[in-house]
């Protein structure tokens, strides 16, 4: 399936042999829809104060996520930034457990300790959403080093935003990955903005995949609104990483349909820009394509939507019904190997 012999695998998708099958397309659509509805539900829950902290949504990123996750094997590892609800869902984690984490409940993927930005799941090898910009890059690189050390054939995917390519950890990580021939695919989700800052304002080389050249790494850019294109590009990069033990830098482009986080009204966007964004909604476009090509008619789509909506409502209800972590567990996760003298003091407790 993979074009592992090409030097620029991500660019080779046009030469692919077979068209995806209708059920695959429908499954992808359903996944995108799940992410969409989940995020809309999360936004609502946030305004209802069910969710706290920061909450960043994947609206507009659904085809990218779906394509990337379709290409990643279950045994592969995934590190992401804080904008990762959709990744968790597409990786196969139950919507219930993801929503419960957003609600801060003990049934959440991180037992309520992480929240929206810090989803983690050992089973699906989602090794964390991270809130410090760039923080996940050295970690993911180290995970790839561990694979290489053990001679394993897993691959690490490390997702990040466009703005993240300007931080030092990007440079240090890609350099190490290239020096040490690590099986890792860095994916830059170029949504045009880091908060309110455009790519042009923050990256002196705005064609971000080109930065790979500074480490003699292969790079490519792919249209992140095209789920199949993303899947193919990611697949080629991942399989090349697996076979040849070479890192890759894949850039995907997609719109960020709303503000940076739920609370950001994005005043820095003009009314026209906001209008254009609506038209740019890749999910609507994909629905239309599927309808036009006879893969999914309006009725079937409505049915899917109802199904997905029920799933998301169930997730929210589950989260809402789930218990908060018990205060007695406050000191349970400071150390994996407990020690004498470890402080388990509440604020009013004396030292002696």
């Amino acid at each position: 399936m993979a074009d592992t012999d090409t030097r620029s695998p991500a660019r080779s998708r046009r030469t692919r042999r077979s068209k995806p099958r209708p059920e695959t397309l429908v499954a992808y659509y359903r996944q995108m829809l799940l992410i969409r509805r989940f995020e809309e539900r999360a936004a609502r829950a946030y305004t209802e104060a069910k969710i706290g902290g920061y909450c960043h949504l994947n609206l507009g990123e659904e085809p990218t996520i779906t394509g990337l996750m379709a290409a990643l094997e279950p045994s592969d590892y995934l590190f992401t930034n804080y904008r990762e609800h959709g990744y968790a869902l597409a990786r196969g984690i139950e919507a219930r457990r993801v929503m419960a984490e957003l609600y801060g409940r003990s049934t959440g993927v991180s037992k309520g300790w992480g929240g929206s930005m810090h989803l983690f799941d050992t089973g699906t090898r989602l090794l964390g959403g991270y809130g410090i910009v760039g923080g996940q890059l050295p970690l993911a690189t180290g995970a790839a080093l561990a694979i290489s050390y053990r001679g394993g054939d897993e691959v690490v995917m490390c997702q990040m935003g466009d703005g993240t390519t300007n931080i030092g950890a990007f440079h240090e990580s890609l350099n190490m990955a290239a020096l040490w021939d690590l099986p890792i695919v860095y994916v830059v989700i170029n949504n045009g903005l880091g908060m309110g800052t455009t790519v042009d304002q923050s990256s002196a080389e705005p064609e971000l995949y080109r930065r790979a050249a500074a480490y003699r790494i292969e790079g490519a850019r792919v249209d992140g609104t095209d789920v199949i294109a993303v899947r193919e590009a990611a697949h080629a990069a991942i399989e090349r990483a697996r076979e040849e033990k070479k890192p890759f830098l894949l850039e995907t482009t997609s719109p960020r349909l709303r503000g940076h986080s739920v609370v950001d009204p994005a005043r820095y966007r003009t009314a026209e820009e906001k209008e254009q964004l609506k038209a740019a909604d890749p999910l609507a476009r994909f629905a239309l394509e599927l309808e036009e090509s006879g893969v999914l008619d309006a009725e079937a789509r409505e049915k899917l939507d109802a199904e997905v909506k029920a799933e998301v409502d169930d997730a929210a209800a589950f989260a809402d019904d789930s218990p908060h972590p018990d205060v007695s567990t406050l000191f349970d996760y400071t150390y994996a190997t407990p020690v004498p003298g470890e402080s388990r003091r509440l604020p009013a407790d004396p030292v002696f």
Partner: protein
Amino acid sequence: MATVTYRQALRDTLRAEMLRDEDVFLMGEEIGVFEGSYKITEGLLKEFGPRRVRDTPIAEEGFVGAAIGAAMLGLRPVVEIMTINFSLLALDQIVNHAAKIYGMFGGQCSVPMVIRTPGGGGQQLGATHSQNVELFYSFIPGLKVLAPSTPAEASAMLKAAIRDDDPVLFLENLALYNTKGEVPDDVTPAEIGRAAVTREGTDITIIAYSRMAHVAAEVAEKLAADGVSAEVVDLRSLRPLDRETVVASVRRTGCAVIAEDDWLTYGIGAEIAATIQEGAFDWLDAPVRRVAMAEVPLPYSKPLELAALPSAESLVTAVRDTLAATGRR
């Protein structure tokens, strides 16, 4: 005299200083087009343009270092680091460069810059976004660290920080931005390095800074209703530390509790307690107690977070325990 928020006081002061001195300019992530993550710089890009309100890439080490370099050439950059958690990425530039350049080169070059950054937990931001690491800066000779708790102080201290020739870490707090207070029309720059007795009392001294200074004031008020007269000392400057004011107060009251938002062990309060036992040894009727954050990576979960953070209740408990330990009544 106007009643404004802490946020507004900061904004007005930045604006006034920029109008006063062309060498003053702002740098940081999202301070321009986005108008500040917490909107402290609202409207300033529009008024002063991108030369003086400079949006930076996400590169804390780089842009903080660049501000230091600009300061070495005599400009007076005021840098915003979105939250103090992200300042860890710039720590080498702050500790190994900003704090060292004056001394390491024998006094040839000063670094007149300000780093504004908020600390604060309690917003469910999780373990990496809720820390209070002002300790890291307060420990470093060559830096000055200010932590105003009211709009008037924020204004007076920010002015002083901008006009000072040394690098100043100016600690704000997420929970204070919307608090209100009176600010004089023409604020006099504060004297750097002075604590303040913000409430006089005779039974016990409560020492606090930043957000906890408010909690301390609230607790003192509550205790007064019960007939306990608590004195409140707001440290205001963490470096230099005004030991005299702290010790003088405890010599009057005979006991003390420290209220801090950071972790207890090795936290800011450790130095305050160490200072008190050394400076008021013969006056102390009970051990100095500290009320601080539980020593855990702060969880996202609301009930866990609430349990971990110091509060008025925990402070009241510590005050009552301390008074009981004095054996006075």
